[in-house]
């Protein structure tokens, strides 16, 4: 019997889990996939938006600005990469300059302060961004725009939640939900009971909700495709947005914390089957659109393209509310700026939980999570570390200089890595220019050894995604 069941382990489920772990509650996260954060959290722009563009008065506007202001503290507590790079929305002609001024006003209405936004003239823009297109005339500078590392936002929050008592059950797909006195959530791993259920199932939120109560919304997967540029490309210093349209924020150039640049996304409603497929049209759309704001884009430096789908709802705003069934809370339709809003949403959801369960603060809540990162240490500290554990001297990922010690740590942490992509999401081998060509065999070996299973059973990302098919020479496992 749990107090709270959270369905879904993306940034939303993760931040809610951590927030709830501050209180004396018995909480469990149910995730249908082989690992956490494999949905929209896996594939997005990684931007902590300032809150300049949501329509004033919406939940999006409210939680975006609130979430932005919470990010730095959360990142410090949980050791999540955080790049305070700023952003700018650029305008190329007279109409756009007019729209830029309206956007400036909208930002103020949403609660941004005077000293957090500023209109830049062409010269100022060029000084800050040498690769900006010559056609750009003005820009709205957003000082509070930042960049995070979404995989680690989810993983760090879940790890910290687990450190503070939250449970996680993977490969646990919700099949049915009933309520008599308590909720009974039937899954592929049995029935879980609780007093409150939080539906943070992302793209599947409407389906999960329908298991209990006919939902008053639908989720329409809205796919975004992206390019990743190699980390040696110095294309932009800040997040470069075109002017937003009704389709969203447009194709953005985003500097990443680890030095790459992300170009994208597209915005297309797709069937669930196509939610993570890249397309020929998408690839050429990004090329065309990005060239309107940035010049000299080195497309020959692309090291990866990928797609993910936002959980856009038919209600055009975040849906964060208790349903007619008391204790069943929908946190649905969390598309952009959901990543930014997540910490603020988690506070609000906790208040909703408080209406059903009396919340008392834990005395021993530990807000801190720390990870060993050799790239952050000076030589002296590195050598101290290697003396303690020599596996931190053995580099397995040559593109990103990641050690065996870091990989092993990622496996043995709470919510540890169990797959090749799981290791990549936590400590990044395979994120560099060789895309795992050299380190993947090493990572498989380490996973097999640490998890004490056969290398042939190691998954790439999901269940049933093994990389090694058969042992040669007729050998059995």
């Amino acid at each position: 019997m749990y107090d709270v069941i959270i369905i879904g382990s993306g940034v939303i489920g993760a931040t809610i889990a951590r927030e709830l772990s501050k209180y004396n509650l018995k909480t469990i996260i149910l995730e249908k996939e082989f690992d956490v954060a494999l949905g929209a959290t896996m594939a997005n722009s990684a931007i902590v938006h300032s809150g300049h563009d949501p329509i004033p008065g919406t939940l999006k506007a409210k939680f975006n600005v609130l979430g932005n202001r919470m990010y730095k503290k959360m990142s410090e507590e949980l050791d999540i990469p955080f790049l305070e790079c700023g952003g700018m929305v650029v305008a190329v002609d007279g109409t756009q300059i007019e729209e830029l001024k309206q956007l400036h006003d909208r930002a103020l209405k949403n609660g941004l302060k005077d000293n957090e936004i500023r209109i830049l003239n062409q010269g100022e823009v060029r000084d800050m961004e040498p690769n900006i297109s010559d056609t750009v005339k003005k820009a709205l500078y957003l000082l509070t725009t930042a960049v995070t590392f979404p995989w680690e936002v989810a993983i760090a929050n879940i790890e910290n939640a687990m450190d503070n008592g939250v449970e996680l059950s993977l490969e646990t797909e919700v099949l049915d939900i009933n309520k008599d006195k308590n909720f009974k959530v039937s899954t592929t791993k049995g029935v879980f009971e609780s007093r409150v259920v939080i539906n943070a199932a992302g793209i599947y939120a409407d389906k999960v909700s329908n298991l209990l109560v006919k939902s008053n919304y639908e989720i329409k997967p809205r796919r975004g495709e992206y390019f990743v540029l190699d980390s040696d490309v110095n294309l932009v210093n800040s997040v470069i947005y075109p002017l937003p349209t009704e389709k969203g924020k447009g194709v953005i150039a985003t500097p990443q914390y680890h030095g790459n640049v992300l170009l994208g996304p597209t915005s297309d409603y797709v069937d669930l089957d196509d939610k993570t497929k890249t397309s020929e049209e998408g690839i050429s759309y990004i090329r065309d659109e990005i060239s309107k704001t940035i010049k000299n884009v080195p497309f020959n430096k692309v090291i990866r393209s990928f797609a993910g789908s936002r959980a856009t709802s038919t209600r055009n705003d975040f849906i964060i509310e208790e349903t007619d069934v008391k204790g069943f809370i929908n946190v649905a339709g969390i598309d952009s700026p959901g990543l930014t809003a997540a910490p603020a949403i988690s506070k609000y959801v906790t208040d909703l939980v408080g209406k059903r369960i009396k919340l008392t603060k834990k005395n021993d809540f530990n807000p801190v999570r720390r990870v060993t990162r050799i790239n952050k240490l000076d030589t002296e500290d590195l050598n101290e570390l290697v003396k303690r554990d020599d596996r931190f001297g053995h580099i397995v990922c040559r593109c990103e200089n990641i050690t065996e010690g870091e990989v092993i740590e990622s496996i043995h942490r709470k919510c540890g890595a169990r797959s090749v992509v799981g290791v990549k999401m936590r400590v990044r081998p395979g994120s560099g220019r060789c895309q795992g060509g050299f380190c993947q065999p090493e990572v498989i070996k380490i996973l097999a050894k640490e998890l004490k299973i056969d290398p042939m059973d190691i998954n790439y990302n999901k269940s049933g995604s093994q990389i090694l098919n058969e042992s040669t020479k007729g050998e059995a496992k």
Partner: protein
Amino acid sequence: MKKELICIACPIGCHLEIYPDEDYRVEGNQCKRGLYYGKKELTNPTRIITSTVAIEGGIYRRIPVVTKGEVPKDLIFDAMKIINKVRVISPIKRGDVIVKNILDTGVDVVASRSM
């Protein structure tokens, strides 16, 4: 009548023209290996086989092997059946015979590295 072949005797890949009616006269070769290959390929094609065998006690699970000469092309898969069954134990030295006289071809399969 002329036959055209690409010589595989070495990575240069000469474009050979072979005249079977003229005792397999070969043109286009840059070295005499081409003369030999041209005739052989049209009369009795042979290949070197490279593969691995399972090894115990080595730094890896497999040790590479190579036939010490060419074997008839149509025996390749039969030879593989034999190679696949072999199990060896480290240490092995480069050149150690792994399968003697495979399929009575007179050709040995040897280790192509030490392990």
